[in-house]
């Protein structure tokens, strides 16, 4: 990388000097002065012209020289690029499964744009897609609403209109929350979805209300209000709203009330981190986003982002594998599984993974993990191979069991 930078720097310098144009100018100057001389004294024409030959020639030579320099500069730069990317061709295109799923990719991109709040780009994108699909020429595209495009886009599961509206709502709520410190839309949303959220074991509503309480306590819209009135407002809010939380969050509510007593000296009280938590707003926004997306069956972070990043992390390994396979002329035998392990950061592991300790294979629907009475788990195929239909000893402990007693587990 340093080399590339250095060569680029060198090219820039040469570019700035702009030697070529200067040389051309000096040639012009030569011709011009000869012309002036002849115009002034026509009798000297032949001598002046004869004298002109060599200077013009050498001036062309110097133009060429400067071009040569630029050329060698370009070549050096190109070499440094080659060096940087040496032995790292992009993986071959042979297994390009994705190209046949253009639609799905476009859908994923559209969703990603919506998710990132790029509504205008998303609608342009959808409009352009519809245009391409229907083959409607330019002028017609104005009348097609992105809504239609969305339905055209995915005949199957996702009602994209709906998703679009949902995301618009989400961004409205987030905007209110982050820019205007207005928690009310978020609280309203969490109340509307109370039952589902509760079933999920989500604390969102309470967290939002608690933050609202803290916010009121600090004076709400006007942070300079005297402590007493802020406390008053918070207390009123608590009386009005908190009773619904009592069964589930008794302890937390008590904490908030207890904090009232420490009011003048909150900084040194045990409640300090509830009331002066700088990341509280960001945390709440994040957990709101997560809940919101989960209710739509979507992951909290953009899957496209995670997948592309994971791809960039995985590529060097896959590429190495490809080179090795090519060198050894072996084929990639396991159709369903990548032949090599790819180390990803821990945050990229979402599912639990069970690798059978006997067969060293990952369990699948066809070959599920089975738990023996002793609590050890192996894959079903390994179990069948071990027991041969009769009682057998667990490969990990002395206990014996019958294959009938083994139970399928879900990880």
């Amino acid at each position, binding site marked *: 990388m340093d080399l590339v930078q250095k060569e680029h720097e060198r090219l820039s310098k040469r570019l700035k000097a702009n030697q070529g144009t200067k040389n051309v100018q000096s040639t012009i100057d030569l011709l011009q002065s000869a012309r002036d001389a002849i115009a002034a004294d026509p009798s000297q024409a032949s001598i002046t012209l004869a004298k002109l030959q060599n200077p013009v020639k050498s001036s062309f030579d110097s133009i060429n020289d400067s071009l040569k320099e630029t050329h060698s500069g370009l070549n050096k730069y190109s070499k440094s690029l080659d060096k940087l990317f040496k032995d790292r061709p*992009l993986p071959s295109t042979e297994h390009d499964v994705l190209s046949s799923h253009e639609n*799905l990719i476009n859908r994923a991109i559209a*969703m990603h744009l919506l998710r990132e709040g790029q509504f205008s780009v998303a609608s342009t994108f959808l409009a352009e897609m519809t245009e391409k699909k229907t083959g409607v020429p330019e002028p017609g595209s104005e009348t097609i609403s992105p809504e239609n495009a969305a339905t055209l886009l995915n005949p199957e599961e996702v009602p994209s209109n709906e998703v679009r509206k949902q995301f618009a709502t989400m961004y409205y709520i987030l905007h209110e929350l982050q820019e205007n410190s207005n928690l009310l839309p978020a609280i309203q949303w969490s109340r509307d979805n109370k039952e589902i959220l509760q079933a999920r074991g989500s604390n969102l509503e309470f967290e939002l209300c608690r933050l609202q309480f803290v916010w009121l306590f600090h004076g709400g819209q006007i942070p300079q209000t005297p402590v007493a009135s802020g406390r008053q407002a918070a207390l009123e809010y608590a009386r009005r709203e908190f009773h619904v939380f009592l069964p589930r969050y008794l302890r937390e509510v008590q904490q908030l009330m207890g904090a009232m007593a420490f009011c003048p000296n909150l900084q040194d009280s045990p409640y300090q981190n509830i009331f002066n938590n700088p990341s509280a707003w960001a945390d709440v926004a994040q957990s709101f986003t997560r809940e919101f997306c989960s209710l739509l069956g979507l992951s909290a972070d953009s899957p*496209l982002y995670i997948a592309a990043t994971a791809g*960039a992390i995985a590529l060097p390994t896959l590429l190495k594998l490809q080179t090795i396979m090519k060198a050894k002329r072996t084929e990639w035998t396991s159709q369903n599984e990548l032949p090599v392990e790819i180390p990803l950061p821990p945050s990229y592991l979402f599912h639990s993974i069970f690798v059978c300790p006997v067969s060293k294979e990952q369990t699948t629907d066809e070959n599920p993990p089975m738990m023996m009475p002793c609590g050890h788990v192996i894959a079903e195929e390994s179990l069948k191979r071990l027991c041969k239909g009769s009682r057998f000893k667990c490969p990990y402990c002395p206990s014996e069991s019958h294959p009938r007693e083994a139970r399928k587990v*879900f990880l």
Partner: protein
Amino acid sequence: MAAELTSTKLNAENHLLLDQPLLKLPYELSRRNFKSVQRLVEREKDYTLPALKDTANASLSNTQTPEQSLAALDAMISRMQGLKRKMEGLHQEEKKIHDQSRKRIHHLESLHHIPSLADVKYDQWSRVRLDRLIVDHMLRSGYTESAQQLAKEKDIEDLVDLNVFVQCQRIAESLRRGETKDALQWCSENKAALKRSQVRPSVRLILPSHRHLQLALSIEDQRQRLTRHVQYNLEFELRLQQYIEIIRAGDRTKYVDAMNHAKKYLTPYIDTQSAEIHRAAGLLAFPRDTKAEPYKSLYAPERWSRLSELFVRTHHELLSLPSRPLLHIALSAGLSALKTPACHSAYTSSSSNSLSTTTSVCPICSTELNELSRSLPYAHHTKSYVENDPIVLPNGRVYGQHRLLEMSKKVGCVEAGKVKDPTTAEVFDESEMKKVYIM
């Protein structure tokens, strides 16, 4: 164990795999620019030096009046000024390209200062990369408007090659409409480079096994068995198409034109494309609605879309652009790396589903990518990865004990001493939890 399974190490050099076109494209552009300058200078030199000599000789031998000499000098001066003007224009362009490269180098360089994949800065960097990839994909698919808008919103206009792709799309589109003018003009602009790429097989990045540029159309080759061993050459194909169009018009008087056209433009390729040329000659004997192969396929209107594809490939080839969107490459690797057997399982996974707050939804299970990743292989793992205090519930579901208890406490409507399965919502007694051993 965890150290082998996961890694947050960031190897910047390796990581730039996807970003080669980012620097290579501007390089190719500035190379092209340089070639234009060279050609211009060469042309003026070839004109000026002999002209000057002639003028001097003429003046010496007194066959020319001073006025004529002056006129000749004036002509030279004005040509040189024209050269200067053109060079300055190219210089400006060069500067722009250079600026772009600098920003791009800076962007790539910044990756080298990021210590690990878990770093917040990496997250930002990677988001910029995703935006770049999306723009690249949009441009290649012809969604120019969206691409421009996105690039603008994200302020990454210097990191994507809008103009190059817009031009490419425009020409490809004109070919699909049945016009050869733009494509031929592009060919003549890039004549030298096109020749170079035929001689230099090493420019190939994507399909190293293919020796020649023309062979890049291997899919087309299979589709068109009859013309299988032909090496494709964009300009030849374009000229051939023009020839076909003249004959298609069906006017017998035009056949002379067609033959002249063939003589002028097709015969120079006789060494490499003789079979095609002979076939083209045979075409004269067949009407446009002929059923006889190979003439039928020569008349076929699909030939235009094939030409368009050929153009796009040749174009990308010339500018060291990969033949398929980078996003596809990144996604197919990434989806596989993330995919687990659980992602398309008939049973809801206990560890990652949208039913409870204790887990986050896996991106592969998320609706956007689920269908897309169905046909891809899943990641290889050699070690199990579960929470470290797993218990099994009577319904066979495995959870981390701590997390399960924690969650049951928060969930409403569960009495003390009971736990609720976050996936199935069944409620069990705490004593029913059983330790499970996963190796």
